[in-house]
């Protein structure tokens, strides 16, 4: 009998398998229950193809979305509906809302302990960091152009504005399939997060940063621009003939000759290292969003191409949201808050969410960023005109990105406000808008003013 009873080990093994399996599932349950409960089709929280996920407001309490009922209710103001559509998603799943999906469990009032018990009685509210007023202003300022405008607070990380154009009114959906004019090209894309674009001259800030940290005598050097630069038989054309200039003047005039020379002098390794270090080729992930990664690839590039790459052409690509963060880094002395959209989820005793601040690594030396900031301030004062931004100490760089043959260039404009009270970094991209300083800078002015107004109202 002792032998037989020793053989009950087989039963112990079976018990072990059963218990281990249940433990494994329990661990999975604690890790993923929030995803399961908000998975499309989940019986208690879905009606049709939309999640009944509580309400969404902007930072000032303006209701952007109420999905507690059978059908989604968007903002009252038609312009606000258009300006926030890409953050909230549409009714039919053409435009997804990764932010709402990310926090769906908190929004429906789910907790792993209590499940959905009682969730039907309390509607939770998500408060986004954006301002509906600013969104609206930005979309109107783009006045029909395709493009994107982004503004964020580089001290706290809150995104005040993340607008993409074209957009449409979800309550009055246009005939997008049948459109022949191109007015709705890429309308389902959120250009701010999901696309990359040719930067043009705003990229010269990256080249300048690399030069300041790599070439010791750079600030005392004098360059000469004759309007063209011959590189091994190819001719790099400048936007003017700038004569003898220093680095600050070269940036202000956006001199291709000087930055082309600097790029060649720094060489592909250093440029690629800085593009990597400043995050151009990385993507940001926050609130369920992952931004498109830009590119900066000088593999097998000839000198002429390296020169153009240093001026933000060749095959350079940036993501608007990521580049805006880089502006924050420059503004904040080499390290800035990472951007976010979901400020908090209110309601529910156990389930609420509140954003915790996260920052970038130290990316640049403080002396470098101070110098670049001063040079960018000089751009505004001496070239773009400080009158464009009354009462605001804006530092910026414009760009005119050539895209393809023949078409009007993209206007780009990026920078920040150098002010402890309004620490805002921004980027404006206007597709086929023409010159950066004339097409994009005024948009930046309007949006920044709107932001400052919102912030000062909050302070009072």
């Amino acid at each position: 009998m002792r032998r037989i009873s020793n053989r009950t080990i087989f039963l112990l093994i079976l018990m072990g398998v059963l218990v281990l399996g249940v433990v494994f599932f329990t661990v999975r349950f604690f890790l993923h229950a929030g995803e399961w409960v908000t998975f499309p089709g989940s019986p208690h929280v879905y009606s049709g193809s939309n999640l009944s996920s509580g309400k969404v407001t902007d930072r000032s309490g303006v209701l952007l979305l109420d999905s507690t009922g059978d059908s989604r209710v968007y903002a009252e103001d038609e312009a606000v509906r258009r300006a926030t559509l890409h953050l909230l998603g549409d009714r039919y799943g053409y435009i997804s809302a990764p932010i709402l999906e990310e926090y769906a469990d908190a929004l429906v009032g789910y907790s792993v302990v209590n499940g959905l018990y009682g969730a039907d009685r309390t509607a939770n509210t998500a408060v986004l960091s954006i301002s509906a007023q600013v969104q609206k202003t930005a979309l109107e300022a783009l006045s029909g152009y395709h493009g994107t405008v982004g503004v964020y607070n580089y001290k706290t990380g809150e995104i005040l504005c993340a607008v993409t154009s074209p957009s449409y009114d979800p309550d009055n959906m246009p005939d997008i399939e049948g459109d022949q004019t191109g007015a709705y090209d890429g309308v389902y894309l959120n250009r701010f997060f999901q696309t990359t674009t040719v930067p043009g001259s705003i990229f010269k800030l990256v080249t300048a940063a690399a030069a300041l940290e790599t070439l010791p005598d750079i600030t005392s050097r004098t360059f000469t621009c004759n309007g063209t630069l011959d590189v091994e038989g190819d001719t790099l054309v400048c936007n003017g003939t700038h004569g003898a200039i220093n680095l600050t003047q070269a940036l202000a005039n956006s001199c291709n000759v000087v930055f082309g020379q600097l790029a060649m002098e720094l060489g592909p390794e250093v440029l690629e290292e800085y593009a990597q270090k400043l995050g151009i080729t990385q993507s940001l992930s926050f609130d369920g969003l992952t931004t498109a990664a830009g590119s900066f690839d000088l593999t097998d590039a000839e000198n002429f191409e390296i020169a153009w790459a240093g001026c933000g052409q060749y095959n350079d690509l940036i993501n608007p949201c990521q580049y805006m963060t880089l502006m924050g880094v420059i503004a904040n002395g080499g390290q800035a808050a990472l951007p976010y959209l979901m400020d908090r989820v209110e309601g529910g005793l156990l389930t609420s969410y509140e954003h915790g601040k996260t920052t970038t690594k130290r990316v640049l030396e403080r002396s470098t960023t101070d110098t670049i900031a001063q040079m960018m301030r000089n751009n505004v004062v001496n070239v773009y005109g400080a009158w464009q931004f009354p009462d605001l100490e804006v530092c910026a760089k414009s760009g005119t990105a050539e895209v393809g043959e023949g078409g009007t260039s993209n206007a780009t404009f990026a920078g920040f406000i150098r002010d402890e009270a309004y620490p805002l970094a921004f980027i404006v991209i206007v597709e086929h808008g023409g010159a950066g300083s004339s097409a994009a800078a005024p948009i930046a002015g309007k949006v920044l003013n709107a932001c400052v107004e919102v912030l000062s109202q909050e302070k009072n």
Partner: protein
Amino acid sequence: MKEILDSLSQLAGTVSAGELVNGVLRYLFPVLTLVILGRCARSLLLYHKEPEVWAWLVAPNGDRLPVTHWETLLGRAKTCDVVLDYPTISRSHAVLTRYDDGSWTISDVGSKGGITVNGAATSMEVVSQGDKIALGGVEFTLVPITKKQEVIQTEVRTRAGGLIHPFFTLFFLTLFQICAAVNLALESGEDDQAILVAFGVLMLMQWGLFIFMRILRRTGFEVETIAFFLCTLGLSVIASDAPGELTKQLFCIGAGLVVFLFLCWSLRGLERAKKFRYLAAVGGIGLLLINLVFGVEQYGAKNWIYIAGMSFQPSELVKLCFIFVGASTLQRIMTKRNMFLFIAYSAMICGCLVLLSDFGTALIFFVAFLVIAYMRSGSFATIALIVAATGFGGVLALRFKPYILNRFSAWGHVWEDAANTGYQQTRSMMCLASGGLFGLGAGRGWLQYVGASDTDLVFAFIGEEWGLLMAIFMVLAVVCLAAFVVKSASVGRSSFYTIGACAAGAILLVQTMLNVFGTVDLLPLTGVTFPFVSNGGSSMIACWGLLAFIKAADTRQNASVAVKLPSKRDLETDKETT
């Protein structure tokens, strides 16, 4: 704090009585369960093992070696039950067997030195008080205990249920049932009467059985309490999902109890039980053949037959027959080492089930077969060989009939096709998650709208309405039964009982495993029932039958109705004389 008060006052105005009751009960149920299962587990798993002495073997040097089983292996090896360290005695020498009537035999199990009883060489011989047994020339005498000693032993051993009284455990279970019934009735609306009556009948059954056991002087009720606990969960699933089937389920619990008592009675006498084997062998095959001929396909498997409007799954009852066929006495195991007939019988059963496309049940039988085969042979190598051969056969079968694979195509990635092939599993996990740890409340789930939710997906059903904690308790209840089998194996009377209990435990474990893991996509969904919980009559009856085998291995004093006690008359005459 203000928030909490606000929400409380807000709730008080809008919440119905049902919701208020549920709000409290959903936290009370896991506590009650912990008490019920905790008491059962402590009683079943932490009792002090007291071996029964059936005889003494008197060695040449005068030592009296206690014989503590009905089947005792004698030999030189350390794994023998009575270790006889004499050079002429083989490692496994002989088996000493006691019979129901108190007579004894000794059989040679392939020793070198052989056996003589009173000088005559033998391979198997009856031995009685004073006979001289020589093993390899070393002489022993057997001194069986007298009736009087047996009675004293009965009085002296600790009674089952003495420390943790089953009465109170059952009382807590009744409390649980009353709360569950009230909670379900408040939510259900028009079916409230039926639900209250059904739970009332269940309580009557369990107290009836308890009192009946008391009359039979049996004080161990933990195993039955666990079964009734699981039945309670099963009944509340049906109350939530299909109140019309409550009567049927209660009827089947009743039928299960009858089968349970009948099997306990038949297992009480080992000779009687051994006779049952042949009947069971024929019955098992017969049932499956009837199934093959008259079976009706339902949910992809042809394992149903209809008799007078009642649907029935014969394969469930074959489980009981299979254990009878597989279990074997030590004397037989040690002398007839090959298991050819048993292997052939198992292959036949599994073959029939595969023909019926009932792969889940085939797998259960296969594992039960492995457990029995290992218990009888003790050889992992043999088991590995059998598994490898079967696996090879399985691969061949899939190669020639690839459509079988389609049934398992969703396994492991149910979320990728959540609306079609993964529908049942993904809804199960969504609902499990919706329930959290404490559940939405009995009768308040959604999973009932998914097909087979009260049988194949019952783990998720309980998870949604009662919470993950309860679903885990449900699994632990089954584990507790199996653990008790392991614990009591070393004080078992006969290997027939130990093997039977192990096979029953293994079947319960594998069924639980296939059911739970299928629901949560750790294994393919095979449509196997959860013991005692799933809605299903044949399954319920079979589970109670399996429980009888576990009861038959329970040798705690006065614990089990499947274990014989000295008759009342013997006890009384003992009292008169002392």
